[in-house]
């Protein structure tokens, strides 16, 4: 394809704010029909690249360089708004991360797809445009496209909305399709389908694709070539197979090593990225911790080994992972129902089953993973385990304390024994409080001086310096904030730690660090860990036992390796194939 002009040609693109330069002169070409992935961590400049191409940069940023689109005489960077408008949605189109906010909530989706064509005069009449819209919705494999065209965005699921976005993007047969994290907001099983769809659509029509993501697996699934971005520069450019198996730039090597949750170093820890530029001042890049990994591992090796069980389609409810003696957590026949808001004016609000007849044990010292997709009930279960919510029926015993129906007074002991780490490192810390007050918050009846001493010790334990105590949360990166959350959870010396998607919002490199830290702390404090996540890879690395939850029920439970290697339930099998390990990815590409 070297002789033909590239579809997109970016030369020496520099983007800067008045204070700093954010993109340092990047150049790349995309040939007609080529599928290119742009990968990088948050802040690497990958989204800036896409918005520059679309001419959607915020006005406070200035850009220099040239961006040329095949067949368009103008330089996109200097083209006027009117010219760009005629190109956007026509010769180049974009799909955004969050399909709910990118669709007009008050317009039927069919009309939104049709509008794209009437605006650019590719379909003459409204009626033809509507017909074509239904065809497009069929092409993105929406079930019942004629009916779906009449739906409003909120009536569709996340995956379906993203399909509608794709139909809109492809409506005018663009030369170039830009996708900015198109599947990040979707569940893993849906993600695989949407990615396959994107791949098929662009291949069939010969559209060039620029796919922006932080997830190597996504690139491997769809793209032929990959660009790796790091701090405003493209550091590596090559075929996906080569970059994945033999990365050349040190950053790419570390990124791929850190993404691989199945490979560990000789101390049983994940590979982290210890490039000096990644760690920010204020935190030790990797916490040097006086831990003999083998010794502690031997001490805390769970005495209890779970049986691998699977829920039969019409079988009786099973007590999963049933433990002998006194388990740390014992849940029997747990159900939680919600009344959905609304319904009709005169009809009662519909009942939603959050959890249905869930029974399981977690033995003391066990690392228990709960994996499930959004809406599966895993967060409800977690909230009930922490006594933040009450079950509709069933019993929950944690550390011998009955949690269901207990008053706050009865739970006083429980509150310091069971702590929780949340997903969102921004939302889980009060922006108006200083770190010392945040970490000290769970302490009771402790003098201020003693509290400060304990906070300092706890911050050291999670690898943060004592001088962070007087700062506010916004001064920290996501990984550091998550360390602060962990410090807060551990300051009361709890026996049970519940983590809700604790690493899902973090960059790959930071994720590995936080997982290592969690693993160390669980050993050191002899914690019983309940780790809730949608990511099977993370659970596989961290937990010895895993329960798969779907539609409010545990469908399968057993030792992690066993569940991962020999999934019994069809849903688990689907989940496992949707989250391939790095080895499998490499194998798929090379074959």
């Amino acid at each position, binding site marked *: 394809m070297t002789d033909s002009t590239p579809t997109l040609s970016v030369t020496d693109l520099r983007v800067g704010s008045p204070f700093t330069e954010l993109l340092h002169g990047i150049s790349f070409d995309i040939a007609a029909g080529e599928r290119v992935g742009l990968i990088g961590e948050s802040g690497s400049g990958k989204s800036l690249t896409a918005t520059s191409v679309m001419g959607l940069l915020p006005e406070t940023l200035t850009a220099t360089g040239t961006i040329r689109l095949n067949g368009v005489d103008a330089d996109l960077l200097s083209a006027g708004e009117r010219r760009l408008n005629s190109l956007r949605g026509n010769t180049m189109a974009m799909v955004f991360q969050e399909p709910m906010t990118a669709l007009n909530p008050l317009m039927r989706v069919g009309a939104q797809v049709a509008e794209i064509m009437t605006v650019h005069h590719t379909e003459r009449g409204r009626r033809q445009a509507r017909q074509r819209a239904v065809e497009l919705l069929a092409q993105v494999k929406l079930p019942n496209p004629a009916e779906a065209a009449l739906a409003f965005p909120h009536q569709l699921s996340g995956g379906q909305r993203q399909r509608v976005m794709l139909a809109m993007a492809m409506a005018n047969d663009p030369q170039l399709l830009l996708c900015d994290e198109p599947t990040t907001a979707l569940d893993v099983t849906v993600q695989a389908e949407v990615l396959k769809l994107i791949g098929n659509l662009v291949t069939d029509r010969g559209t060039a694709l620029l796919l922006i993501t932080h997830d190597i697996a996504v690139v491997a699934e769809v793209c032929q070539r990959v660009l790796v971005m790091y701090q405003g520069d493209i550091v590596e450019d090559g075929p996906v197979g080569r970059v994945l198996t033999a990365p050349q730039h040190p950053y790419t090597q570390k990124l791929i090593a850190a993404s691989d949750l199945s490979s560990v170093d000789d101390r049983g820890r994940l590979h982290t990225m210890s490039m000096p530029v990644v760690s920010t001042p204020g935190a030790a890049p990797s916490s040097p911790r006086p831990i003999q990994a083998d010794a502690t591992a031997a001490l805390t090796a769970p005495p209890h080994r779970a049986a691998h069980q699977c829920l039969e389609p019409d079988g009786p409810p099973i007590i999963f992972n049933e433990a002998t003696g006194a388990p740390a957590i014992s849940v029997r026949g747990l159900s939680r129902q919600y009344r959905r808001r609304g319904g009709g004016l005169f009809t009662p609000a519909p009942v939603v089953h959050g959890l249905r007849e869930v029974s399981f044990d977690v033995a003391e010292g066990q690392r228990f993973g709960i994996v499930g997709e959004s809406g599966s009930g895993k967060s409800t279960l977690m909230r009930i385990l922490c006594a933040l919510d009450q079950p509709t029926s069933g019993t929950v015993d944690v550390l011998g304390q009955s949690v269901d129906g207990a008053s706050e007074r009865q739970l006083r002991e429980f509150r310091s024994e069971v702590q929780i780490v949340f997903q*969102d490192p921004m939302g889980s810390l009060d922006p*108006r409080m200083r770190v010392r007050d945040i970490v000290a918050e769970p302490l009771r009846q402790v003098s201020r001086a003693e509290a400060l001493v304990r906070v300092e010790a706890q911050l050291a334990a999670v690898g943060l310096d004592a001088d962070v105590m007087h700062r506010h949360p916004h001064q920290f990166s996501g990984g550091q904030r998550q360390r602060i959350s962990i410090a807060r959870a551990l300051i009361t010396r709890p026996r049970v730690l519940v983590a809700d998607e604790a690493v899902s919002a973090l960059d790959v490199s930071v994720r590995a660090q936080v997982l290592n830290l969690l693993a160390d702390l669980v050993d050191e404090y002899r914690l019983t860990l309940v780790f809730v996540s949608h990511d099977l890879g993370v659970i596989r690395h961290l937990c010895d036992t895993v329960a798969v939850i779907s539609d409010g029920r545990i469908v399968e439970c057993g030792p992690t390796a066993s569940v991962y290697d020999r999934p019994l339930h069809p849903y688990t099998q689907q989940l496992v194939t949707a989250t391939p390990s790095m080895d499998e990815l490499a194998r798929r590409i090379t074959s």
Partner: protein
Amino acid sequence: MTAIKYETRARRPAGHGGGTTLWAGLVLIGLVLLAAVVSVFWTPFDPEGVFSDSILLPPGAKHLLGTDSFGRDVFSSILRGAQISLLVGTVAVGIAAVLGVPFGIVAGMNPGRLDQFMMRGNDISLAFPALLLAIIFGAIFGAGTVTAMVALGIGTAPAFALIARSGTMQIMSREYVQAARASGKSGLFIGLRHVLPNISGMLIVQASVSFGIAVLAEAALSYLGLGTPPPTPSWGRMLQDAQGYLFIEPLLIVWPGIAIAVAVLGFNLLGDGLRDRFDPKMQVKR
């Protein structure tokens, strides 16, 4: 592609939302504040006496803005009038915040029956105009500055309760509140340590806007003779006094009008500017 077509781009410089508005508001309020402070120590003439030798003089070198029907210097009255406007505004907003904010926070922290009950009560009082309440209070307890301040305060409280409740409900869904609950913190602690500091931005905006409304309401009450009693100068009563001389000395009605406009506009601009600065939706996404 909808996003591209419908979204207008943010044209504010990042991180400095509402700069001009905020400063314009601060300058106008600064003028009023300066007038109030200066008039405590000094005014060109005594604004409370009667001077038969200088009735209805036009603006000139001696009397900057002229004199009124009692021979009082208008400029002095305007300066002194700022005091009463600011006093009424401060006390009324203070009463409103003290009543409304805890009410709203308690409602927002207890979703369900209690919240519904409290908010329906709030709706009823919200349906009752503050000005009407002040007139009724004036009729019952006798007209005066104190009655006006208390009535305006009570009348404005429901608006504070609404704002505080909606803010509280947002904060209660944050994970740091969940974390505090998971470590057994009481409702009082969460309300004081987490909720109040995090909704203070919204409350300050509301306070600024309510302040403007209170200044306007005080002027209206004084105009009706239900506010500040004579001889204390008040912008509203200056309007009323000037009314009778509308065709003889029309400027007399302009000066207090400008003063009221400056104060109300100042507080509204300040409120808008602060809203732009505090409202997360206005901030440019990175």
